């Protein structure tokens, strides 16, 4: 290197370079054919050495590490996918269970409401029938009472009419004609 000889020595550097040039035949170093054999031999030795190291040791090792990582990542991904599927299935099962329970609860609710309604209806109907029967009985009683009362009224009216006629005329009227007169007046 020029720097290694340059600076400090100053003018001597030129001489040194010239001496060096002389040693190599004065040419441009890359075109110095006298060095070709040495360089080719070292290149062959070291490149073959490198090739052997690379192909037998380095690439299998690094490639193996990369492949191992790839496999690990793929394994982990499949594992994660499996777990995800599992959790999704569990969620689905939970949801369907929940839906089933909800419909069941609704059915039970409907059923009990219908039953209660039916029972209430039946009770109301029975009560109404009972009340209707009582009402009919009462109406019948009222009607018979009124009929009795009306017939009594007719007898009393006929007696009273006979008495009135007897007091006014002194003649005891014929019962049949009194009854007919009373009936006519009642229909009146």
């Amino acid at each position, binding site marked *: *290197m*020029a*720097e*290694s000889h*340059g*600076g400090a020595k*100053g003018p001597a*550097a*030129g001489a040194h*370079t010239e001496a*060096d040039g002389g040693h*190599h035949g004065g040419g*441009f*170093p*890359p*075109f*110095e054919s006298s*060095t*070709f*054999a*040495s*360089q*080719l*031999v*070292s*290149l*062959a*030795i*070291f*490149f073959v*050495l*490198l*090739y052997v*190291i*690379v*192909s037998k*040791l*380095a*690439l299998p*090792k*690094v*490639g*193996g*590490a*990369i492949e*191992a*990582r790839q496999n*690990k990542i793929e394994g982990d991904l499949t594992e994660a996918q499996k777990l995800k599927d599992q959790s999704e299935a569990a969620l689905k099962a939970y949801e369907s269970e929940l839906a089933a329970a909800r419909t069941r609860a609704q059915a039970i609710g409907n059923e009990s409401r219908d039953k209660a309604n039916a029972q209430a209806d039946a009770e109301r109907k029975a009560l109404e029938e009972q009340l209707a029967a009582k009402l009919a009985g009462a109406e019948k009683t009222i009607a018979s009472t009124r009929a009795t009362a009306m017939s009594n009224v007719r007898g009393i009216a006929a007696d009273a009419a006979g008495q009135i006629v007897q007091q006014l005329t002194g003649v005891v009227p014929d019962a049949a004609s009194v009854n007919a007169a009373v009936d006519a007046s009642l229909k009146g």
Partner: protein
Amino acid sequence: MKIDPIHQFNIEPLFTIGHIGNHTIAFTNSSLYMLVAVAIISLLMLASGTQLVPGRLQSVAEISYEFVASTIRSTAGSEGMKFFPLIFSLFMFICVSNLVGIIPYTFTVSSHLIVTVGLALLVFFTVLIYGVAKNGLKFFSIFVPHGVPGYILPLVMFIEILSFFLRPVSHSIRLFANMLAGHIALKVFAGFVAMLGFSLGAVGWVGGVLPLALTIALYALEILVAFLQAYVFAILTCIYLNDAIHPGH
């Protein structure tokens, strides 16, 4: 003070390994930085644990892995993964040695044409040999594009064949030239700062702010280029390999 932007590319032999013919094979500073790159890559890839949740170092290792893998898949298809170790080695070797080379006083391996030519030829012959071995003669159908009128087919084929054989040239020179030019420019601008300061004194040091700012900006650019050239080299390798894997396309 003299700026010598070329000195940083000197090859310094550290010790001699042996001889091939009449060539002396030396362990050079270039060899040392290749070793450094291999050591850094090995350390990064091997010492970085295999935790499920990665730490920083492991993240870097895994990002490099995924980056190269996705580059191959997108350009050469999943069949291209056969060449994953090769492309990963190329990308990491170039990227790490480029990034190490940016550190001042270090040497940049890929600033030497012979190194990039070596890597480019490795890719070229891999493509050629694999392509012929896998597809037989059908491989050469990459030279015969579909839907070209018969009368210009010979010309197109000539261009295709030429470009195929020029691939290693462009492949290697692109990387080499980028690293070389970047390092020379950095050294020149950084040298201006010192040169102004030492020659003009106080005024020079104040004036040196401008080239210093340029050096910093260029340095940031070079970090990007170091990575980008490694990526370009790797992706071109993928594209060339795609021809060998699917010659019909």
